């Protein structure tokens, strides 16, 4: 736990020089800005910490490739984690309004005495925002769909020796609906995302039915 906090604080320090915005502040994107990093704290099915890096594909294009790694809190630091690789792009701009899309893939793991799971999924997020120089406000929606999971059973195997181990197909997915606000503080910008999570059938909803994310981001 202490290590997680140290990593998070160090990442915040890195991010606090000049900050543009979370995922991203399309209204402030400059031609010479090609990289971003972000440090994140939030709730994403569990309480989590995350780091993200993005690389701009071309100076003339408002498009980035980004990678994000996050872990939930807990005494076992790397037993559960989520890695996202995404392509994010502003697809429309009209005045201060902008629409962006972010398709991507997810690799995540889970481990406990019950079982170990490696899962691969796809996600698509979109946001429509109002971007001013010092702040922005966006509404967002996303879908996360699982493709396949590899299971290695733990204590469940003691209860049920015939339980299957190996690859299984899709185990479902979820939707997220929420809002994202960002505000500049000098050369820094803090963003906050908040929203609701639904299972894909809108019935089997998660125990923590909301997400939030506090992020500091630096772009250069």
């Amino acid at each position: 736990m202490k290590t997680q906090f140290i990593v998070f604080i160090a990442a915040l320090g890195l991010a606090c020089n000049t900050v543009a915005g979370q995922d991203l502040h399309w209204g402030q994107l400059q031609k010479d800005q090609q990289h971003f990093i972000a440090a994140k704290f939030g709730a994403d099915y569990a309480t989590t910490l995350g780091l993200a890096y993005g690389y701009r594909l071309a100076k003339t294009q408002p498009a980035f490739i980004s990678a994000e790694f996050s872990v939930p809190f807990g005494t076992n630091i790397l037993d559960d984690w989520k890695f996202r690789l995404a392509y994010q792009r502003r697809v429309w701009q009209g005045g201060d309004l902008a629409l962006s899309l972010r398709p991507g893939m997810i690799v995540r793991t889970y481990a406990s005495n019950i079982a170990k799971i490696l899962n691969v999924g796809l996600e698509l997020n979109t946001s429509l925002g109002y971007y001013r120089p010092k702040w922005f406000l966006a509404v967002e929606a996303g879908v996360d769909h699982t493709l396949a999971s590899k299971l290695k059973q733990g204590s469940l195997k003691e209860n049920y020796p015939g339980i299957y181990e190996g690859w299984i197909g899709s185990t479902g997915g979820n939707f997220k609906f929420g809002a994202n606000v960002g505000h500049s503080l000098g050369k820094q910008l803090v963003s906050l995302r908040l929203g609701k999570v639904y299972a894909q059938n809108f019935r089997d909803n998660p125990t923590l039915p909301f997400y939030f994310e506090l992020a500091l981001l630096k772009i250069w």
Partner: protein
Amino acid sequence: MNRLLFLGHPQGMRPRWPLFLGHPQGMPLRMLLFVLVLAAFSCQMEDPSTPGLLVPKTVDQDPTLPALAINNTLLHVETYGKPSDPLLVLIHGGPGGDYRSLLPAKAMANEGFFVIFYDQRGTGLSQRVSRSQFEGADAIQLMIEDLDQLIGHFKKSPSQKVFLMGHSWGAMLATAYINQNPAEINGAVLAEPGGLTWPQTEDYLSRSNKIKFFSEALNDAVYPEQIFSGRDEQEILDYKASFFASFENAPGNTIGNAGPYPFWRNGAVAFNALIDNAEQVGFDFTTQLKAYKPKVLFLYSELNRAYQLPWAQEVSGVYPSAQLEEIKACGHEMFHFAWPEIMEKSLTYLKELK
């Protein structure tokens, strides 16, 4: 030497993208190809809802399992002992649990009892049922009727005595049955019923399921919910519930469990629907308890910090006669972790009433 030349970049110039990713402008296409290949293969993979794949088959799927058809459902039922002996019906916890962790109680067959185990409607190895059966004001009544028909099936004569032994939710259901049928039951062993009314149960649950937001126990329980999400098949919901159930056995858990205990299947639909039902319509199993004459044996565990003597006194206080006993050095899952002590106390009590 230039570090990047050493790394072998053709122009000896620093690339402007991370080396491990390759050229970023090709990334979207590569990602798409990878995902398409995986998606194609995912169709060939095992379907997680296949019966028997992730959770054991139920009595309707496996004819070799002992079963009994009553009240328009098929229950997983086992019996031990001589059918003419006094009946001792074991009622498991949950809701949504099963009787596997209660099986040490089959030793009571050697003490002159006909011991009956059953997985409640829609739980354990009993047939799965639709969520609608657990909805509406009569949901718990259906569980009471199942128990009534089970007793009626095995009771050979009006004089054959019937005792109930319930754990947790099972002790609550036993009380619900006694409340409606006080003359039918000659005695009961009740182990840590959370509460006998819904407000009382909510109070207990708020203490026993206290969440620590930054704990390993929490993410062990809920992190898989992003992977198993929104599939309606009960086989998947039951497997997913196994992860959530780990919360109560995690190190440092409030209810004092020393670790995992055996089970067949978590009945996710039964659990969720009955909790939702209680939140909507509530329950009160105490309305007629004053009419119940026999003494009940009321057990609570030493290590369950959410229970303890004051709560045991409050919950058992509605019975006209209750004998309270603490089970030492164990937590809520006392049938699995401390059966010898339970058996000793239960036998002493039951022999008085037998």
